[in-house]
């Protein structure tokens, strides 16, 4: 399918590149530390994101200990609880998921999948990582400054974010804003690279409609991020001015602890619009790469072409575009003009349609497939369940009047953890099991992987599915201790304790995963170049792991789409993208 006259491509002579043009690193430092190789930068991004993500994971354990057994742990007080939720949320959404999907998977996979030697601006790409690292260091430093990190909630709503009633008002909030500004600068450098590389550096024959969906997901998400992050940038700068210079962008006249402040004329709701103009696309910035990657995982491990490829591409693009006109569904009870509710509820529910198409096409890809229940496939199945679950509860919260009782309750917490926490993490983990052999040349241990999957998937589901019902009952979010409330029965506390125990168990399983990552690096089974017998270009490199420049002297030429699995009459159940249609022998590149 997707017929492009391959004869025309086949006649173009292969592009040869002299070694001198590849800018090979000359020393250990430029090879492993200040590397301009997208693959090394990808690993640097991934390790940094994982490291700060582990901090956020530990914070979630502390939060769960407090919620499950309030009053038991004297080392957690109300202020610290707020600091934990704030740092946990910010780290997970931005410094882990965004950085890992775009900086990690984007850097590793884009050049390989489109058949390029590297990103088009390798030096800027390197800078992008170092600025990101600086942002992470600034963020982490807030744990050690006087007053500690900010406890304003990850949404950082003013006025409370910069007033003294909120922990971290001295340094925490300032450094948080500085860190966000740095992150956005770093991301912009990387993001421009990804977009230009996809548009300009595809190898011959790699038309846009032959790109693997992984690339489509990351590409669209990056364009969205380039458009959405500036809103957060502006909001962060303005809030920094309000905090340091005493300007009043977001600050109306107000009284703080009995004292009339000098602020006046600003609008707290303006901040919310800016924040969510970034914040809602951000959900899809995390989700679209996951959509793309999971499509490829399902297709490869079910040995079947992705169902409805063109529809999948257009669904990604449609979701990306629509996600810019739904932001105020986070603000139904913010006090904005009530008429907005009609518009934003309608746009929000319309997004459900392209999203549902994607889900149908994933499960229809399984239909009449040859499903290998490998660890990546298991994680893909886990993703579909948690994503469908979280997506459907989004229909509650997006439907303005239904959101009114549920907003600011644990229902919201359960919803967004399911849909943009657990579901994308399922994809991240599946993707790591899938591409680890390409990155290291070794397989991850299968038994540990299956243990990791079942504990993580079933555990996460047991954590977040019942949590919706606490929210339905009315338990508010961001409470370190619900205290005495007539409408909350004792059984709700039992459920909270249960969730905490499960959360700690799931946390333990992640340690097993980390062990697997390190152990397999040395002891894992050798994988060869294409252990999953996949079609896409990254599996057809002459070396595994791929060397700098990816392809040796000749760039691959692409003759077909990325999903030629189980083609009737073919010798094998997959045909690599760089295999010419008529000839059978030219598969040498794979070995």
């Amino acid at each position, binding site marked *: 399918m997707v017929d492009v006259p391959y004869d025309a491509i086949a006649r173009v002579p292969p592009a040869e590149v002299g070694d001198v043009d590849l800018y090979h690193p000359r020393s250990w430092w430029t090879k492993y530390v200040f590397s301009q190789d997208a693959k090394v930068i990808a690993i640097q991004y991934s390790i940094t994101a994982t490291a700060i993500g582990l901090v956020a994971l530990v914070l979630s354990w502390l939060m769960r200990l407090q919620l499950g057994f309030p009053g038991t742990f004297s080392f957690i007080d109300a202020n610290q609880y707020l600091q934990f939720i704030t740092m946990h949320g910010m780290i997970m959404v931005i410094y882990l998921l965004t950085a890992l999907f775009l900086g990690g998977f984007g850097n590793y996979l884009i050049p390989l999948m489109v058949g390029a030697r590297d990103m088009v601006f390798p030096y800027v790409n390197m800078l992008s990582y170092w600025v990101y690292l600086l942002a992470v260091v600034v963020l982490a430093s807030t744990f050690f400054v006087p007053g500690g990190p900010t406890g304003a909630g990850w949404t950082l709503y003013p006025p409370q974010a910069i007033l003294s009633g909120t922990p971290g008002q001295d340094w925490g909030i300032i450094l948080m804003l500085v860190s966000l500004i740095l992150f956005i600068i770093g991301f912009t450098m990387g993001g421009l690279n990804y977009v230009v590389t996809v548009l300009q550096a595809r190898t011959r024959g790699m038309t846009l409609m032959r790109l693997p969906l992984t690339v489509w997901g990351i590409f669209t998400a990056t364009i969205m991020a380039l458009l959405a992050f500036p809103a957060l940038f502006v909001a962060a700068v303005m809030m920094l001015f309000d905090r340091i210079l005493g300007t009043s962008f977001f600050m109306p006249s107000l009284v*703080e602890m009995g004292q009339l402040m000098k602020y006046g004329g600003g609008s707290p709701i303006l901040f919310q619009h800016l924040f969510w103009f970034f914040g809602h696309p951000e959900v899809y910035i995390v989700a679209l790469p996951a959509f793309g990657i999971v499509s490829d995982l399902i297709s490869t491990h079910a040995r079947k072409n992705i169902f409805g490829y063109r529809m999948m591409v257009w669904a990604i693009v449609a979701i990306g575009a629509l996600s810019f006109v739904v932001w105020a569904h986070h603000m139904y009870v913010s006090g904005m003009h009530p008429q907005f509710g009609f518009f934003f509820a309608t746009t929000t529910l319309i997004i459900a349609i392209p999203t549902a198409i994607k889900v*149908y096409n994933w499960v229809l890809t399984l239909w009449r*497939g040859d499903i290998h229940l490998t660890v990546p496939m298991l994680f893909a199945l886990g993703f579909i369940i948690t994503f469908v679950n979280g997506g459907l509860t989004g229909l509650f919260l997006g439907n303005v009047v239904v959101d009114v009782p549920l907003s600011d309750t644990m229902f919201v917490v359960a919803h967004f953890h399911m849909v943009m926490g657990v579901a994308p993490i399922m994809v991240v983990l599946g993707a790591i099991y899938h591409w680890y052999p390409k990155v290291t040349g070794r397989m991850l241990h299968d038994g540990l992987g299956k243990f990791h999957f079942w504990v993580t998937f079933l555990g996460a589901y047991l954590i977040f*599915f019942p949590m919706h019902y606490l929210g339905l*009952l009315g338990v508010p979010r961001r409470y370190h201790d619900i205290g005495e409330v007539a409408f909350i029965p004792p059984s709700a506390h039992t459920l909270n304790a249960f969730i905490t125990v499960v959360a700690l168990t799931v946390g333990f399983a992640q340690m097993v995963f980390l062990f697997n990552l390190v152990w397999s690096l040395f002891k894992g089974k050798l994988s060869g170049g294409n252990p999953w017998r996949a079609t896409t270009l990254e599996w057809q490199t002459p070396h595994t792991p791929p060397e700098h420049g990816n392809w040796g002297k000749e760039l691959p030429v692409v003759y077909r789409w990325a999903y030629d699995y189980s083609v009737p009459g073919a010798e094998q159940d997959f045909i690599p993208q760089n295999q010419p249609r008529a000839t059978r022998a030219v598969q040498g590149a794979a070995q």
Partner: protein
Amino acid sequence: MAVALILLLVAVGSVLFHLYSPWWWTPIATNWRYIDDTINITFWITGAVFFAVVAFMAYCVFRFHHKEGRQAAYEPENKKLEWWLTIGTAVGVGAMLAPGLVVWHQFVTVPASATAIEVMGQQWRWSFRLPGKDGRMGTSDVRYVSSDNPLGLNPDDPNGQDDVVIDGGDLHLPVGKPVKVLLRSVDVLHDFYVPEFRAKMDMVPGMVTYFWMTPIRTGTFDVLCAELCGAAHAQMRAKVIVEEESEYHAWLEKQQTFAELSGRGAVMRATYKSGGE
């Protein structure tokens, strides 16, 4: 096939949990039954979709998992099927959105008969104000806030003199009368949240927000703050007591007006000034 069975159990277990969960919404105390109805419609539609998708997946895993000699089908597209699924989804979405928007229209259309009352939040307590005998509330501004004028009422506004001010006490409301709840904050965002009322809205410094409702049953309800407002967010509590109109009036008689409160404040200041030797 273990994997297929577990997937199916997840689907069945979720539905059973929903049906038998001891954790469900609180008995409603206002006219917003329609919101609960819309939630129920949404539960049925989304629940059916969830069960169908997961059960279908489980079946696929059961039926098409890898066996020696199995070959996957090659079917890149099926336009007809894709269009039918799209149309079906659109209909389902419409079935949830339409009642939602109708109820939202009711939610934002305040009946003319509603009595305005005011709730004010500040770190970290609630205050309330009810219109006095003239049925009108006086103006307010954050500049007037002081220890003896915690709500910042305009001392020169004649409409405000008979306003009933409840600072630190509980709010009483008559059952069966629509109220428009005006919401104000003098410092940070708060949110007047009574789960039994279903309705809630943020309170934003610098502006007045609102929602309306008609309490339909008597009782005492916990007021919580639903918008993060700083260190003691979780401790910001009060109670709303919905009672028969006669009891409400008996209670109202005992409350102090703004004039009384500020008058007493003036007397106290005078005492301090002339006090001492």
